[in-house]
């Protein structure tokens, strides 16, 4: 009977809104309204909280899961002020700046080198072994290595993120440059795009100065027990400045000295590059916890590990939540920038 019903024209009305809605749930790719989507997400959160509450309600032996294994939601959220007092904001800021530092360095090298590798294919062939090695080395194994190389200061965490991310950024940027269809390069050539040494050199001297600053000043600031005033007088400082400058020139001159790359390939590869950076940043944010848990010194990871050792354990859950929220917020922020920067693309991916 029900089947017959659904074929008659009046069926939709007779089924009522819940019936209609249920049918739409079962329709492939039927897009929910924004409000509907939000309500559904809210339902999921409420569901998790309810389950959490049910298995932790009551006290002592009456609980399904004991308080040691899983604190109740109420107890967890009630411990938030204490977490704040333990320096939550400073910890979050510390972790974030470590990821930012390492990731920016990785991007500053990986992106231009990747774009070069995807455009000058012989350079790409040369770097291929390094790229393969970097993407397949077990990330966790880099922690003991970075501890040996860089000690236990901030610089170790930053370099860990750098090493973990740079090969992936290089690979994705290279693919992005390679994915620009030949047709656009051919068009650019027939419209007169060509090499332009002088313009390329002018642009990349400016960029190279920035690299030089980071290599000299930035590096000093990362070190523990190094006073800037004294460091500026050291030969190492100026050697780093020089090396940074050379690196900047080497990475950007090949890209900026050719109009086809500067005007066509690089801008057209940029949406893919930024998208990959956004996704990789999310991963890097996860990796920093690894480094901070193994060698705890400030940061959210350190908060988690001390909470596990000395309590309160509620803080572990809070920290996990905050990390996820923070990562999500940053992701949304970059996505927003992406939409602004590339208005000619339609971004839908989450």
């Amino acid at each position: 009977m029900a089947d017959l019903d659904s074929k008659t024209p009046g069926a939709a009305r007779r089924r009522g809104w819940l019936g209609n809605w249920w049918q739409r749930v079962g329709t492939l790719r039927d897009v929910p309204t924004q409000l509907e989507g939000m309500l559904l997400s809210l339902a999921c959160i409420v569901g998790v909280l309810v389950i959490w509450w049910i298995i932790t309600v009551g006290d002592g032996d009456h609980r399904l899961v004991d308080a040691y294994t899983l604190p109740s939601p109420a107890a967890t959220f009630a411990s938030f002020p204490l977490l704040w007092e333990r320096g939550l904001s400073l910890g979050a800021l510390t972790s974030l700046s470590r990821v930012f530092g390492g990731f920016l360095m990785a991007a500053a090298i990986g992106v231009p080198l990747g774009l070069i590798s995807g455009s000058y294919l012989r350079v790409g062939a040369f770097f291929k072994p390094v790229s393969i090695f970097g993407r397949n080395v077990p990330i966790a194994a880099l922690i003991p290595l970075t501890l040996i190389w860089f000690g236990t200061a901030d610089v170790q965490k930053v370099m860990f993120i750098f090493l973990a991310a740079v090969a992936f950024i290089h690979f994705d940027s290279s693919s992005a440059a390679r994915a620009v269809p030949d047709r656009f390069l051919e068009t650019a050539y027939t419209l007169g795009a060509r090499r332009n040494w002088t313009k390329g050199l002018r642009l990349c001297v400016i960029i190279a100065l920035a690299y030089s600053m980071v290599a000299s000043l930035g590096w000093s600031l990362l070190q523990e027990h190094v006073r800037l005033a004294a460091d500026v007088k050291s030969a190492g400082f100026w050697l780093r400045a020089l090396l940074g400058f050379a690196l900047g020139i080497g990475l950007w001159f090949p890209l900026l000295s050719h109009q086809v790359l500067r005007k066509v390939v690089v801008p057209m590869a940029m949406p893919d590059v930024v998208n990959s950076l956004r996704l990789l940043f999310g991963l890097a944010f996860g990796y920093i916890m690894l480094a901070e848990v193994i060698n705890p010194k400030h940061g959210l990871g350190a908060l988690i590990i001390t909470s596990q050792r000395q309590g309160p354990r509620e803080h572990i859950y809070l920290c996990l939540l905050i990390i996820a929220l923070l990562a999500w917020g940053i992701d949304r922020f970059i996505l927003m920038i992406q939409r602004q920067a590339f208005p000619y693309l339609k971004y839908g991916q989450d």
Partner: protein
Amino acid sequence: MARIDIPAGSAPCEIAPVAANGTLRRIVEFDRVSKTYLPGTRKEFTAIRDVTFHVEDKPDVGEFIGMLGPSGCGKSTVLRLIAGLAPHFPATSGTVLVDGVPAEGPGPDRGFVFQDYANFPNRTVLDNVAFGLECAHVPQKERLERAWEWLGKVGLNAKNDAYKFPYQLSGGMNQRVAIARTLILGPRIILMDEPFGALDPGTRQNMQDLLVALWKELEATVFFVTHDVGEAVFLADRLYIFSPSPGSIVQQMAITPPDRKSVEMQAVPAFQQSVREVRHLLDQAGRVSPTAPTPA
């Protein structure tokens, strides 16, 4: 010397032999040009064999050369050899001369219009048209003014469309942008590879009329590849007919240039007769069915 065949029977659309005038400069010259891919391997493949022709640079008027032939016979290869685009360029043997010197890599003196327009998706219409001037370091104000002017010339509404991105345009509008972007540089040679192949018949006829109008003031030599016999007969002064792969030019003929709009031309009996005749020649040269329907 180019081989010139006059089709049998009287020429309804005044198909006449091209006067071989040796004193004129040759803008493009092919001498026994062949292109073989992967020579010496099992996959060796000859795309074109012994292609020989030349086009003279007549003062004030360029020639409009239509290129017809079965699919895969090497029409694109010939265009890309003139443009200097790899992997078709350089030729395996023979000489390709452009303006009397061996062809080089691509440059703005040889404009290329592709079937898929290839407008830069990250640039607005105006910036797409100004691209070539930008590469040549024309100051911003001047190049945008000239691009704006060219939008009008190719029949776009500059006020409406100048700041749109290519994805917001129809196929016909995109092809207008691509044509403006090429012609703004005033190339001596314009290479068009099935430029209207992806357009609907109505748009296609409009574009043909546009091209005729623009070409008259440009004085450039145009090489125009098409699969549409009607389009070739309408647009061209001269037709090159290719044999199947490995392609070579089996027939050249002169054709009366268009004197009216594409739609009106289709109705002229003499024009229809010419189209039938060319189709017959194509059929002899290759495998194109004389009854094959053509959109235009």
